[in-house]
């Protein structure tokens, strides 16, 4: 018997006042897999992520995390079960330093009800490891609001990694980045430990084909194709609705 | 409770509700357009009453006061918005805090200028008597308040539904940012909105003065009641102010008769229940979390 998929979604529906943002999404992502979700704007990618992280309840359908039904659980409970998300629009603690942003993620596991001292040197050292991994060494004491756009994306990733997740959702990790920054962050993602399962929504097809083991194509809230990058590239329907245009652009 | 008493209390409740509508309409308008809960609303109301007192002392005419006081208050609002609130555009919570300070200043200057004693405003001529309704004497001024509020509501609805200004307001309540994208001068619109809101508070102050008197602390009572009304009815809409006033006025009046000990707490309990269950109020359509 094979192990349960890291993340399994079955018949997920979500509508907003008559509009079906998700119209029956099912997918199973194996442990350690890199799965890309692609599709045109409005295909339901961000809604899917919002449902997966519990920020929006699904209208119907189930979500399983490592075999356990987690449908309808609160965002914080899902996070505690090993689900982390790198937001598309940065969600940082603006007046805090880069180091403290990461430290808050690190401290989450032990809970907030501790009157012991925060900002210890041990904690800083631990946080700095993550900052260095994403290429923010030397920026530890810069405030989040003072970082450049690229640096903010890096910090966003460092926070997600500091949660020590089992499943990581990356919502357009390279959005708004320069080619050099894009190259470095996609290299970084590629080098992440294979025990980590990754779902990635991304518009940059180079990044998608480089990183993904498998690709799911969403269109109008429905998966219309799924397969290896080579299979998806060869799919005529996918080319019609999305890829052709995306690759030309 | 005898039928007589019920009729009398019902009339009291309706006339109190009528006053609350005048009071809450301005608060609601400002919130609807600007997303600001104007905590100086009670101070505006109080200032309206004192300006009316002054006008009556000079001219001896209530009917002049009922015109002058709202105009003076509108002028005050028209100055305060660009002078203070505009500097914090977009920072709604800070704007709310700002209005607290504005209220402090207005109330204290009133005390300085007019003194801190209880004052009275005589009933206007023609409405200083009582008539017989269902076997008991009933002051005609309260009937005037009801009629006046109905007339005002009708006028406001007409402006709201039929005029260009009303169209702007309806659009602004839905989405004020959209208006500025469409090229509407929002600075001017907000100044006018705040002026009209303050003017309505001043009008409520004049109308209330003969029945409720003029005294320190009236600002707090007015503020709290108008907050209750708009929260119950729904912040930011005319319907909400009307519905809230129609509910809270009689509820307060009958509550006082039926549960004298806990009438006030009862009203706040109603408000809390509505805020919790339906945070946008009975008729509200605003976004939560701002």
């Amino acid at each position, binding site marked *: 018997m094979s192990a349960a998929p890291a993340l399994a979604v079955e018949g997920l529906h979500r509508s907003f006042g008559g509009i079906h943002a998700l119209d029956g999404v099912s997918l199973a992502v194996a442990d350690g897999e890199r799965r890309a979700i692609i599709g045109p704007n409005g295909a339901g990618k961000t809604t899917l992520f919002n449902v997966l992280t519990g920020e929006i309840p699904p209208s119907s359908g189930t979500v399983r995390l490592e075999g356990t039904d987690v449908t309808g659980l*609160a*965002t*914080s*409970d899902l*996070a505690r079960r090993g689900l982390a998300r790198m*937001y598309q629009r940065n*969600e*940082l603690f*603006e007046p*805090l330093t880069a180091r*403290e942003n990461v*430290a*808050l993620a690190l*401290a*989450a596991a032990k809970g*907030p*009800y*501790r*009157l*012991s*001292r*925060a*900002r210890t040197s041990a904690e800083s050292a631990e946080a700095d490891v993550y900052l260095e991994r994403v290429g923010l060494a030397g920026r530890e004491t810069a405030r989040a609001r003072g970082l450049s756009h690229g640096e903010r994306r890096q910090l966003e990733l460092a*926070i997600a990694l500091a949660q020590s997740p089992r499943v990581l959702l990356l919502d357009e990790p390279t959005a708004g980045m320069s080619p050099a920054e894009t190259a470095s962050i996609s290299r970084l993602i590629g080098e992440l430990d294979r025990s980590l399962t990754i779902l990635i929504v991304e518009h940059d097809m180079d990044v998608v084909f480089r990183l993904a083991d498998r690709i799911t194509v969403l269109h109008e809230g429905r998966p219309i194709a799924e397969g290896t990058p080579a299979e998806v590239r060869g799919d005529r329907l996918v080319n019609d609705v999305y890829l052709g245009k995306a690759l030309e652009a | 409770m005898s039928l007589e008493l019920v009729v009398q209390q019902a009339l009291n409740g309706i006339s109190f509700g009528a006053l609350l509508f005048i009071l809450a309409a301005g608060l609601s308008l400002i919130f609807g357009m600007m997303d600001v*809960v104007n905590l100086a609303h009670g101070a505006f109301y109080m200032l309206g009453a004192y300006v009316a007192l002054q006008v009556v002392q000079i001219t001896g005419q209530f009917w002049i006061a009922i015109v002058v006081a709202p105009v003076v208050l509108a002028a005050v609002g028209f100055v305060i918005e660009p002078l*203070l609130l505009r500097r*914090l555009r977009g920072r*709604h*919570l*800070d704007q*709310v*805090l*700002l209005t*607290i*300070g*504005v*209220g*402090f*200043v*207005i*109330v*204290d200057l009133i*005390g*300085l200028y007019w003194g801190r004693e209880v004052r009275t405003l005589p009933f206007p001529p023609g409405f200083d008597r009582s008539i017989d309704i269902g076997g008991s004497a009933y002051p005609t001024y309260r009937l005037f308040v009801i009629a006046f509020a109905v007339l005002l509501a009708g006028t406001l609805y007409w402006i709201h539904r039929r005029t260009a200004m009303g169209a702007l307001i309806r659009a602004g309540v839905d989405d004020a940012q959209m208006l500025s994208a469409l090229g509407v001068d929002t600075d001017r619109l907000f100044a006018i909105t705040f002026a009209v809101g303050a003017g309505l508070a001043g009008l409520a102050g004049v109308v209330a003065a003969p029945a409720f008197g003029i005294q320190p602390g009236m600002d*707090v009572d007015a503020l709290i009641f108008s*907050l*209750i009304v708009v929260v119950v009815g729904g912040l930011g809409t005319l319907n909400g102010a009307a519905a809230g006033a129609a509910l809270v006025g009689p509820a307060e009046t009958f509550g006082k008769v039926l549960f*004298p*000990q*806990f009438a*006030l*707490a009862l009203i*706040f309990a109603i*408000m*809390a229940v509505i*805020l*919790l269950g339906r*945070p946008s109020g009975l008729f509200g359509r605003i976004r*939560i*979390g701002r």
Partner: protein
Amino acid sequence: MAPLASIGFYLALLTFPDWSGAIEGSRYMTTILRDMTVFAIYALSLDLLVGRAGMPSLGHAAFYGSGAYAAAIASQRLATSELTVTLAAAIAVSAALALVIGLLCVRATGIFFLMLTLAFAQMVFAVAFQWTDVTGGSNGFAGIARPTFGGLETSAPEALYRLVVIVFGLVSLLIWWISRSHYGRALVGVRENERRMRALGYHTRRLKLSAFVLAGALAGVAGALSAWSFRFVSPNDAGIGRSVEAFVMVLIGGAGTLLGPIVGAGVVLYIDRVLSSAIPFSQAVLGVVFVAFVLAARQGIVGSLRAALVRVRR
């Protein structure tokens, strides 16, 4: 600020009645300082919400007032003036009330939180005002016995002063401790980005509720101290005016700092007590000062000074 200076300042405050005898009007000044200290505790408790956790409560007087009433009623009904009993009653009542009100309020944010807390505080005010049998109604509750601690009396002004300042020291220490702790930083995280905190696995509502209860309990302590200081409690102690006062103190002094609320309490009380006997429009002055800070120096006195200091050092 250097810890040594803080300790020195605190000791000077604690011993004020002992060394100020030669100064003219020192007894009056002791009273003023005592009341400033009570208000400083009250402001510090609100700042836990406003400054740290970003919860703009406009109903904090509910807990100040309930603490004051609880201390007064406990000492009357239980016929004891023992500090441990009456203070415990104040803390228990205000914390329990904060738990109930907090449970209902922490879902809301921003202006809605502000209005919900205001609504509930007005309910408490209404109960204090109308439940005459227990609270004395609009007349208030007078002649409250000052507490005893073991065998120590606090009926003498100096003794009560010392009690107030010692409690103030303990509360300040607690807030300082919290501000350095994981708990304090988590509150700041909620203030800055509650959504992100949830995504990190924090149960933010529970966290906010805990801060609300703690702040309520500390406000209850301040209320009890005020009941003993003035030997009088009235519904106004739970009213909107008292709630606004705390907010003004926090904002003028500087939200989210330890020193800010203390300084703010000093400024507000100075205007309320000292300035008001000199000029007849002290509340208008307070209003103008408040407006000026909201408009131009939202970080308050302490926050602005700190920012200026950083600029100078560069």
